[in-house]
């Protein structure tokens, strides 16, 4: 463990920039903290925090000048590793045949350094790694961006109103898979970061950033801050037998209830750091001699998603919400060996009508228990 003073934070950013990284970090834009290209600490949300509840997000001033004094914002790192639009191919017509001009594997995306990756987000990246870089399939557009990425993780020293990483066992303390991890300590005349090195790349960068070794009390303060965060989760999700809960309740009346409230707008899937669905669109120009193939984010909530020759296999709102939640919390475990939910709470905050996945899971459980009780008493 090391200690980096706040005044030396810009040196970390410039060390990364000198290595050719496009440095992305938190920044205030349009009344929210988003992830954007940053050049110095002054681009960070200095002294800002957020207050989150279902369907509500508000920026607030903090009493101090913290750089990371907020919880997660509307965007996740997904938008850099798995961009919303990617050109996969361009093709030109050559007589009766065609020639591929470019494809995604010869694309040269920026080499990213991410500053401020929270534990839930790091877990989400690991989940998307399983989707896009597994033994069977490898997505070149993802691999190109992911393999070169430098990750500066940040331990959460406060919990948002819709956070539930403790329930999902994904935080708030970052574990592994980072190059550097920071815990911000601010107040009582101090402002520094307790830093942990997670890779050789991280150690190399640390050599250029002024630091001293953290003594036991220095590291202990950071530990306590993260422990306190874990005690103040905004939400909890009961994950006991959650796979069975969802699989056994395909016909629950609760799905009709949630379908009445759900807008089918797909915001939850767009903000989710693990949702990975996309669609592919081909377009020709007027002459028909040139065509492009693009991939863009899609969602299991859209009507087009389930449209196949002969009809739509998921036409009702009920079926679409059920599909999303059952995949996220249950069938994801069968498919990728872990839950698709990291407890970041974005789907709760950014649902325009405040549908809360933890509350829906709880309602499904209550409904299920009630039905079981009715069956056992012969009602």
């Amino acid at each position, binding site marked *: 463990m090391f200690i980096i003073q706040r005044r030396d934070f810009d040196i970390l950013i410039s060390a990364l920039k000198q290595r050719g990284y496009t440095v992305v970090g938190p920044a205030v834009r349009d009344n929210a903290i988003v992830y954007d290209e940053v050049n110095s600490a002054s681009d960070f949300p200095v002294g800002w925090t957020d207050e989150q509840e279902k369907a509500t997000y508000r*920026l607030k001033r903090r009493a101090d000048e913290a750089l990371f004094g907020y919880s997660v914002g509307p965007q996740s790192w997904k938008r850099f590793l798995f961009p919303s639009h990617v050109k996969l191919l361009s093709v030109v017509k050559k007589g009766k045949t065609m020639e591929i001009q470019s494809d995604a594997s010869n694309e040269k995306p920026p080499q990213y350094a991410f500053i401020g990756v929270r534990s839930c987000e790091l877990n989400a990246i690991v989940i998307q790694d399983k989707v896009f870089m597994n033994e069977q399939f490898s997505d070149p557009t993802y691999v190109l961006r992911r393999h070169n990425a430098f990750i500066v993780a940040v331990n959460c020293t406060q919990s948002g109103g819709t956070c539930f990483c403790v329930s999902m066992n994904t935080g708030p303390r970052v574990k592994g898979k980072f190059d550097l991890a920071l815990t911000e300590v601010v107040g009582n005349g101090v402002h520094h970061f307790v830093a942990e090195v997670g890779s050789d790349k991280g150690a190399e960068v640390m050599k250029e950033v002024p630091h001293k070794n953290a003594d036991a009390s220095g590291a202990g303060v950071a530990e306590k801050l993260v422990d306190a965060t874990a005690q103040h989760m905004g939400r909890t999700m009961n994950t006991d037998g959650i796979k069975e809960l969802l699989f056994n309740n395909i016909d629950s009346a609760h799905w009709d209830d949630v379908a*009445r409230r759900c807008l089918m*707008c797909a*915001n939850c899937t767009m903000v989710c750091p693990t949702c990975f669905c996309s669609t592919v669109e081909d377009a020709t120009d007027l002459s028909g001699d040139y065509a492009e193939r693009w991939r863009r984010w899609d969602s299991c909530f*859209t*009507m087009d998603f389930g449209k196949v020759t002969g009809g739509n296999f998921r036409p009702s709102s009920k079926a679409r919400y059920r599909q999303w939640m059952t995949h996220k919390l249950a069938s994801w475990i069968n498919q990728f060996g872990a839950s698709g939910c990291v407890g970041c709470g974005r789907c709760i905050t*950014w649902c325009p009508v405040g549908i809360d996945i933890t509350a829906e899971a709880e309602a499904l459980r209550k409904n299920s228990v009630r039905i079981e009780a009715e069956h056992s008493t012969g009602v």
Partner: protein
Amino acid sequence: MNARKPKVAVYKFASCDGCQLSLLDAEEELLAIAGTIDISYFPEASRRMVRGPYDIGLVEGSVTTPHDVERIRAVRKECRTLITIGACATAGGIQALRNWKDVKEFTRIVYANPEHISTLDRSLPIGSFVHVDFELRGCPINKFQLIEVIVAYLHKRKPNIPTHSVCIDCKLKGNVCVMVANGTPCLGPVTHVGCGALCPSYQRGCYGCYGPMDSANTSALSAHMIEHGATKHELMLMFRGFNAYAEAFRRESDSHE
């Protein structure tokens, strides 16, 4: 493609002309378009009028008179593919607000000799009278979408015109949700994409110019807005805009009357 350039006709019914002007507004693409298709009938742009039949007919405007009814039937007969463009042609337009009123009363107030006025009691979309091959939404339509539809039909492929919510376009662009972050009322979650999330990109709520999206749950959005202080009258007005007579918006505004 065969050597003959496909013949295209552009028709106007009850409308403001804004949608057909999008074709002329496609400045950079216009020469390429004119080189690929034969714009055979487009009174707004040219006196040259080549007789039908046409390969593609683009129809702007709504049907509001008995004469319109006869004319749209004739138009349908002379066009192999009929594409309606804009909120008037696809939903009845802003003039469909009269569908809730007595049109005879209007003619008495407005015209000195109302007996000369022959009009229908409602403004209706083209699809209420004839079969339409493709409806392109918007008030006004997006010129890039219009070009995409024309190109797709010329090359016999499906146009890339999604029917989902405006929210998806906001998220693709990286917009921060104006409803969640600012408390601004927004019709985006129930509105059809096409504008590129124009208003929310400038921190405004969506007005629903592209009409209801494919599975619009308008009552859930209304319930949420009422919880946050909107009145029933405000909701009625919110859904009664350029696409007031589109089924999902019409039902929703009626429920708040």
